[in-house]
Every structure is written in C-alpha cells, then in structure tokens.
C-alpha cells in the first residue's frame, strides 16, 4: 500500500500516544526512589544510594511478605473463578421479557459499585456483628438455630469466602454492563435464524450469546490475571481486624502499614515496582497461552 494510505491512521494514534507517554511513562522516573534512601525535600541526587536494600526488605525472613503474598494470590484466584458470573448475569438480564424490568434490575444491581468500602463495611457490620447484627438476632435470639452468636467478621475460616462474596456483590452488576454491551453487538439475525430452527432460549444462549461475547470475556479474564497482585486496598483495610489478619492482609495493606510512620517512600516504591513487573509478566504469559489455546488474545 502506498505510504500515504496510513497517514490518517497515524494521525489518529500518534498524538494520543504522546499523551500516554507524557502522563503514564514519564513519571516512572520516580522508580529511582526505590534505589535510594529518599526523603521528600532532599533532591534525589543528594539521597544516599541504597541499592537493592528495599527489595531485600520485602523478602526478608522477618518480614511477613510471604503470608501477604499468599493471601493476595488466593483472593485473586477466587475472584478469577467467579469471572463467568457477571456474564451469566448479563445473559439473564438481556433475557427478561419485560424491557422495563430488565432496566430496573440492571440499574439496581450496579448500585453496590457506587458505595465506598467504608459504607459497605458499615452495612455488613450492621448485619453480621456478633453483638447487634440482624443475622444473629434472627438465627440466634429468635429462631435459636445457633448455639452461640456467630462472628463471621472475626472468623478467619470464612474470611476468604466473605471477601470474595463481598467483591462479587460489589462488582458483578457493574461488570455485567460490559457484557450487556457486548451482547448488544451480536447480530440479531443469528437469533432469528435459530428460532426458526426451533432452538429454545437456553440453547440460543449457549450457542450464540456465549461465543459472541467470548472475545470480550477472554480479554477481561486476561486483564484480571495481570491484576492478580493489585487486588486492592480499601476493601481489605476496612475489613481487617486482628482476628482475621492472617487471612485478610494483602500486599497493599501490608506496605501501607510498614510505611505508615515517617512515610517510607522508598519501600513503597520498591513494592510498587515489584508488583508492576510481576503483573506485566503475568499478563504477557497468560496472553500467549490464550492465543495458543483459544485463539483470542489481547495483543
């Protein structure tokens, strides 16, 4: 093709690419902070060189990083297992006969996305607390199904499930939006042809809808795999207490605690760098695997 054929497309991409560089890559000079003993106010050139000290601190045997990494990975893995659920939700919503009801349901299921974790905790607390919670009032005081009030929020056995359920509750409706949009992009003729052939809705869903949104699904899955270590801060900080600490402490809450007094930027930057490299590696590995097996990939 002639050179000038792709000029308009270059014009479409390069200027925006420069924006990406300016706002996302240029500030990465800050990674230098992980290698020096940095104090804000002192110029970086003046800060003493620290080599790999902060990275070593991450993995020191007196550090709890191993425990924290395990929790992060387990929780992420559980969440990954649940990625099909928003898809199911989207399919269900788009299969409701009355349009108005599907709109209502779609709106309502996305409400949790708007509440901050602090509020979510308040609500959970009002329900599950061992002293006053509605659940205990019902099961223990009124129905006497339990011998003693349950303390779900303080029971390490349930922590992983509780957190996964909370995440699901908070994100399912919102993520479903993406799939609803994807479903909207599927050619209607396919459904009409299938009806003519006598396929019922369940079959339609399996054979038309699911393959139709598969590219989107794979991509979201890959992105989430890359994000395994970035499971979040707010949720786990808010639900944390000493009794469930060993199950709930994740990378971001841990590094926050370590750096909290005197704000240890170097340590935080080192942890951030570690996460970034692992995430990118995970993403590209998963991407390659997906390309070889399913044919879909991000890149």
């Amino acid at each position, binding site marked *: 093709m002639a050179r000038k054929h792709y000029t308009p497309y270059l014009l479409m991409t390069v200027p925006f690419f420069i924006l990406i560089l300016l706002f996302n890559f240029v500030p990465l000079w800050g990674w230098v902070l992980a290698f020096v003993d940095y*104090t*804000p106010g002192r110029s970086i050139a003046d800060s003493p060189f620290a080599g790999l000290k902060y990275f070593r601190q991450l993995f020191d045997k007196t550090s709890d990083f191993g425990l924290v990494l395990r929790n992060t990975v387990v929780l992420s893995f559980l969440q990954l297992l649940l990625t099909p659920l928003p898809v199911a939700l989207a399919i269900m919503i788009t299969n409701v006969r009355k349009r108005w009801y599907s709109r209502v349901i779609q709106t309502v299921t996305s409400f949790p996305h708007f509440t901050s974790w602090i509020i979510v905790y308040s609500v959970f*607390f009002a329900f599950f607390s*061992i002293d006053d919670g509605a659940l205990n009032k019902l099961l223990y005081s009124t129905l006497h199904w339990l011998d003693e009030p349950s303390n779900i929020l303080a029971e390490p056995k349930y922590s992983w499930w509780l957190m996964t359920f909370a995440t699901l509750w908070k994100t399912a409706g919102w993520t479903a939006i993406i799939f609803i949009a994807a479903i909207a992009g599927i050619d209607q003729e396919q459904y009409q042809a299938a009806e003519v052939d006598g396929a019922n809705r369940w079959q339609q869903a399996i054979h038309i809808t699911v393959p139709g949104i598969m590219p989107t699904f794979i991509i979201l899955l890959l992105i989430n795999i890359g994000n395994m270590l970035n499971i979040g801060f707010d949720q786990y900080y808010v639900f944390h207490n*000493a009794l469930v600490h060993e199950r709930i402490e994740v990378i971001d809450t841990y590094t926050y605690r370590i750096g909290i007094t005197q704000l240890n930027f170097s340590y935080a930057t080192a942890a951030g760098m570690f996460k970034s490299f692992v995430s990118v590696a995970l993403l590209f590995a998963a991407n390659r695997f997906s390309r070889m097996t399913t044919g879909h990939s991000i890149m």
Partner: protein
Amino acid sequence: MLALVLLTGLALGCSGKTNEGGSEGSNRPSASSNEAGEPVTLTIFGGLVNNGALQGPFQNDDVMAELEKRTNVKLDFTSTLNVTDASQKLAVMLAGKDLPDIVVFNALTDRDKVYNSGQAMPLDDLVAQYGQDIQKNAGEALALYKQMNSDESHSLYYLPGKVGGDDYSPLVNQNAWNLRWDLYKQLNHPKLDTLDDLLDVLEDMMKLEPVNKFDKKNYGLGLNLSDDWGHLMIDKATANMRGMVQANYNDWYYDMSKQQIVPRVSDPEGIFWESMKFYNKAYQRGILDPESATLKFNAISEKYKTGRYFAATAYWSLAGADNQFIADGQSEKGFAPFLVDHNEENIYIVQAFASGDQYQMFIPKSSKNPEAAMKFINYLYTYEGAKLLQNGVEGKQYDVADGVPLLKDSEIEAIQNDPNHYLKTGVGKYIHLARFTPHEDPQGDPVNFTNVPETLKKMALPVQLDFMEHYGYDSVNEAFTNIPNYKFDTSLMSAVNPEAGSDIQAKKEQLDAYLVANIAKIIYQKTDDAYEKAKQDFLDAYSSKGAAEVFDYYKKTYDELVASLEP
C-alpha cells in the same frame, strides 16, 4: 524509544527544584511591610486539629479576627484546606519544595521527613531580634530543641508548641479508669485495690443494669481493636496507675518508680501482659464486649454514647456519654475517675509538655517574609496570645467583672449545645497553632477561663458535682493529685527515633506492624492454657524480629540524651 522517554523523564524529574513563580496560595501581593499598617499575609500549613473546620483560605471567626487586629497579620490557610492526611500532604509539599511561610507539623509522624529535608530556616538570629517573648517564656525549651532537634550546627530550627502545658483538667481525667459513678454508689463503694477487684465490680454493675435504654446488652468493657492504635488502649489506665509511662515507641515504658526505661511488650511479666490477662479474663467472664475485635472508633463511640459500657480508660473515649444521659433525663448517671490498683508514690495521669509537645513549627527557607513570620509567632508565645486562643474575645465570649474574667452564660450554653459552636468563635479551633499554654499567668490566675472557680461550677455536670461533694473534693481529680508524683514530661521520650533508612528502623516497622496485627487475638482465647500458648507464640515471633536489639537502641539513645542535657 522507551529508553529515550525514560531518560527525558529522569531529566525532568531530577530538576525537581522547579522554581515556579506561583507557590501555594500566594496570589496576593504579600511581603508588604508592617509599618504601613497594611496587614501582612502569611501562608501557613497546619495549626488545627481538624482541617475540616477551615472556612476557606481565610477565617472569619472571632479569635482569628482579633488575632489579625493585634498582630497585623492575615493567615492564609490554602495549603491546609481539605487536608485529611497531613503527613502525605506535607511529604508532597516538601518534595515539590512548595512550602508556605509557616509550617506546623506533627513530629511524631513526620519528624524524619521534615528534619532530613533540610528545608527549615535557622532561627537563632530572628529569635534574638524579634522573639523576646519566646525567649522569656520558652527559653528552656529552646535550649532543649537546639540540643535535641537540630544538627551539628546546634541551630534552632524548630519551635516547640504548647510549652508549659499539660493535659490536666479539673473536671475530667484522660488517663485513668472512668467508671459509672451512680452504679458505684449503688454497690456501696467497693474496693478497687487490684484489677481482679475491678472485674468483680464491673460484673456487679452489669447485673445492676443489664441493658441500656434501647434494650441492648451492656458490658463492663469495650476496646476498639480494629483500629491501628487500638492496642494502645489495652494498658492505658492500668500502666498509668503503676507509674509506667508509654510514649512514642511501642516497646518501652519509663518507670517512674525505678526512674529508668524498661520494656513494655517484650516483658512477659510486666504490666502490659498483666493488662492483657485482665482483658482475657474479662473476655472469658463475658465482661468484655466480644465485638471488640471488630470495632473501630466510630462504632465504639456510638456504643459508649448510648451507655453500653461501664468503664473507659480516658474521658474522651466516652464520646459524650454523660451528655447523652442528661439529654435522656437521667442526669444522675455518669462517669467519674477512680484510682484502681495504683502505686502510692507514682502514677502517670498528666502528660506534661514543659518543653513542648509534638506539634513543632518551622519557617521554611523559601519563606518570603521571615521577619513578619517571627514577629507573629512571637505573639503566640505571650500570655495574651495564649489567652486569646483559649478563651476568645472580651465582650464576645466573656466579660470581666472585678478583674475576674467570666464566660458569658450564653457562651456556656452555646458550648454545651452546639458542637459546631467553635467554628464561629474560633475558641479551641487552633489548638496546634498554640505555642504557649501555661496553666496560670504571672498573677496566678487561670489562663483558661473555664478554670475560673465560678465558671467551673457552672460547667461541671451534675455527676461531677455529686462526686466532688461526696468525697469533699475541690476537683474531680483530687484523689489523683494527692499522690506525690502524678505528672511526667514525655518530650525526651518523644525525641528518640531511629535513623531513616537504618536497619533499626526497618526492624521497628516490622515489630510495630506485627504487634498491631496480632495482639488482639490473644485476648480472645477461651481458656487459660490457650491464652498462655498464644502469649508464648506471640512473644517468640516478636523477639525473633529483633525486639531486643531495637529496645536496646532506644534505651541507650534515651540515656545518652538525658546525660547530654545534664547541666
């Protein structure tokens, strides 16, 4: 290509000394001279307990209006607006070298950052020239600071706050057991010689009043262990009663009786673990609210406020419980402080900051008008300045009759009824700005007018009056102030810190993180054997992280500091 980008970035970043013209908030012509009568505008960071109280860059409350009149200075709080995490904001400002004319910061959390940034201006000359009152009223503190909070030059960089102050109040006690006075009376004033006695008393109180007005179960004790600082409440009153002072670091006490530094968490036989055992027993006996593990401060305050606990280790924990009883028409109910399991000679119920508290002040090198700043700061070190910040303006908040300043009744009522009243008056709004907070002025009169005897009687709650009358006290804390030694100055303890980036600092952070995350579990063991095992496991893990080494560092540094300050 990526490499090129990163290099550009590095170049940009290294020239982080970007000296842009507009720094924070100074869009007005400042640095005009005082003599012309035009007020000078000084930008300031910090100074309030609660930055949400700021009404914008400039304040229009009574105190600030008067302060401006007297000092000819307008304070511009732009950099402090909306700041909820002052540490983070300060770090960002230091990094950008974007500092206002005056900075107030919390040395407990930001000391390393600020000191190492080298952004503070040496103040010796300015103080000599414009700081007469500072020298007069805070001279000793200055000398201490030149020694402790400086570098090899021993210049004065940082100015101490709340010099001469302490947290004593005649009506409430922030450092001892507060128990329900009305229930205690009903039980016929039982003895409180040991912690076990306290457990028995609390259990009896629970029998007297099993539920609160909403029919919810009451408990003797509650803790907010889900907060990062919740563990500090475990030995709060108990250690204080034995004359053991905890400040700054988590693993030490100053023992007032032995007059030396001793370990706190790493001593299995010390008062900290006695307190742990106390709470564990309370848990096993159902006296401790089982929800304590998951409670945060907001939640526990709500429980206190609705009268569900019978004991607190500090008056502020009660979150207005007394007021709520009064509002409910049950003014006979309320709390008063008691001596429990105490040392006869030494207790720690008043934290003194003769040489300043942790809210230090400095003038950044980049300040455009250091002389004006110093003149202003000097006023803060005067008795008039102190009285203004604490009491307000004559004619507005109080009137003077026969030389005695009396708070107006309307003012007293407003304080009691409207939690937001201080926003209009400014009284109590600028707590961390205060540099000088003595109890009495040179004539012996109270600096804080709520301590004037007539006013005190008006502000006391019925419970407090009843308590004082019963024992024949003039103040609620008389039993405490009768103990020979009840005050301690924690400024030296607060000055000991590991070097930034050192091995000791890394270990300390690990120890602190481990303590906060794991200590509460031990209280929740259901049997004594399980408790002992949990305790041992904790101590093993804690010491394996280097507890002994860090403790030795702190003790040694403290002792050296004390020695260096001997005259």
